[in-house]
């Protein structure tokens, strides 16, 4: 039995070595004083300096955070209300909606990305052709015949807006899938009780339903945020002129490889590590407090 223990621990250690060695390498070589990922030439922070001076990369980081925060906020709100709506729906209608809801999750990213790409290109062409051209033609007509003018509309193109729409579309399903089970676990009589005690429907929703499903909302929002920050493929096909960190990295890897990338990964890894430690410490403290109460 003891031998089995040692064997299994050894196996786990090997796998974790496999998983972490490349990441550790990135971290170590981010402090390297040379333009190399292979030869160590002393400690320096030059790649961090260059990273913070690199406008393109910093702009991409800003874009990534902005699109992730916006997409998470919007999808959390929309997803939660939708889940409540689905909860009240008859099974006959709910099941097909949930099936379609699963499509962005199950489908290969590249298919979703390509489909959204075609959709946005077509939608923008229609919009620019009908609405913008029509309006601008009308403005020209006014200018030529009545010497009056109105502001012209700019043509749309793929960019931050399409990127945000794409992110919302793949974030909402995760929120719904996290909130819906919590609604199912909820004791329905609580809502009736609140209403019997004089709450309006909205009051009951905010005071009873939301606190009950809060863990689902939080985990849904967290998953949505990680999906957004981590996404490359769908962003790549829908970002147009905008850029995210992933797109930037892909471009850099194809052209010139710079140890700036090591610095980026080290910083990101550090942030994630700290966040995870905080979450885990808080959770275990809460558990201890709960067990102490018992």
């Amino acid at each position, binding site marked *: 039995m003891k031998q089995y223990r040692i064997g299994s621990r050894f196996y786990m250690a090997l796998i974790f070595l496999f998983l972490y060695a490349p990441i550790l390498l990135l971290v170590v*070589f981010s402090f390297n004083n040379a333009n190399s990922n292979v030869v160590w030439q002393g400690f320096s922070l030059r790649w961090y300096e260059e990273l913070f001076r690199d406008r393109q990369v910093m702009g991409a980081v800003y874009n990534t955070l902005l699109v992730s925060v916006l997409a998470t906020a919007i999808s959390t709100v929309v997803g939660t209300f939708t889940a409540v709506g689905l909860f009240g729906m008859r099974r006959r209608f709910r099941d097909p909606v949930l099936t379609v809801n699963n499509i962005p999750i199950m489908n290969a990213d590249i298919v979703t990305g390509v489909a959204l790409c075609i959709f946005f290109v077509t939608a923008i062409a229609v919009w620019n052709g009908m609405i913008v051209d029509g309006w601008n033609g009308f403005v020209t007509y006014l200018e030529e015949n009545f010497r009056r003018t109105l502001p012209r509309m700019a043509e749309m193109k793929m960019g931050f807006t399409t990127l945000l729409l794409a992110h919302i579309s793949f974030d909402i399903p995760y929120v719904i899938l996290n909130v819906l089970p919590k609604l199912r676990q909820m004791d329905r009589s609580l809502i009736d009780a609140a209403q019997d005690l004089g709450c309006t429907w909205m009051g009951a929703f905010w005071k009873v339903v939301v606190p009950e499903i809060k863990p689902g909302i939080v985990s849904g929002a967290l998953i949505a945020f990680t999906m957004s920050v981590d996404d490359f*493929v769908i962003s790549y096909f829908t970002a147009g002129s905008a850029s995210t960190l992933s797109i930037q990295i892909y471009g850099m890897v194809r052209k010139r490889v710079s140890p700036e990338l090591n610095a980026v*990964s080290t910083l990101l890894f550090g942030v994630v590590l700290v966040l995870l430690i905080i979450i885990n410490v808080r959770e275990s403290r809460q558990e201890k407090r709960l067990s102490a109460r018992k």
Partner: protein
Amino acid sequence: MKNKISWLAAPYVIWMALIVVAPIIMVVIYAFTTAQGGITLDNFARMGTYTVIFTRSFQLALVATIICLLLGYPLAYVMAKEGPGFQRIAMVLIMLPMWVNFLLRTYAWMAILENNGILNNFFEAIGLFDLINGIFGTDLTYFRMIRTQGAVVLGMVYNYLPFMVLPIYSVIIKLDHSLLEAARDLGANSALVFRKVIFPLSLPGVLSGVTMVFVPSVSTFAISRMLGGNNQMLLGNLIEQQFLGGAYNPYLGSAIALVMMVIVIVCMVVMNHFGEGEEQAVML
């Protein structure tokens, strides 16, 4: 009352029709038309020229999935046997790399596998090349590792291994212990218990793990581009080229994407057939 609540879902239903269903319908339409218009099967016929890429994609994805299963199942199994505190740490350790951007993780492998990269330098330092050259009389100075199919498979395994471990682990951890005890009481040794009880019961987890590794592997284009160079093109690279690359042809690209969608649907049908495991996989 109840019907009133259900209207809350109405905006999202409209949104889905517009931005989930409509784009897919457009892909289907594009797949069966060309720039000249009219319904044709030309795009599918043209795929014949890319048979090499199709077979390569399937082969590599299949090999990566099998390796993930062979590495991931034992890991999930031994993890589930540990104490709760250990399990929690192990779970965090498995999930943590997934939070590092996968392009950065793949980029790290580029530095390791390069011809003058870390691994080759290491072999040099321990005198492996001298040894081989001494024995076989060759003049080897490095192993060619990057820009090979092996490197692409390695990248897939490295990136998607957690997707295999997590669903299997979550199924094994929920196994009913009384079943194992019953099997043992009836005289089965541990190998037989595993073969007759544990493995069949963990099959839903295995299936969702297989799907969650196979689908991204068969559709990847970044891993093959970074670790496979230009001569290991996969289906994903082919699609990418039709939309954003030099060979702009969204009609052909849509047709290939449609084929990929069919693959995903087949995977889903197989998984639904076995039930259970799927929902947990989705929640991960």
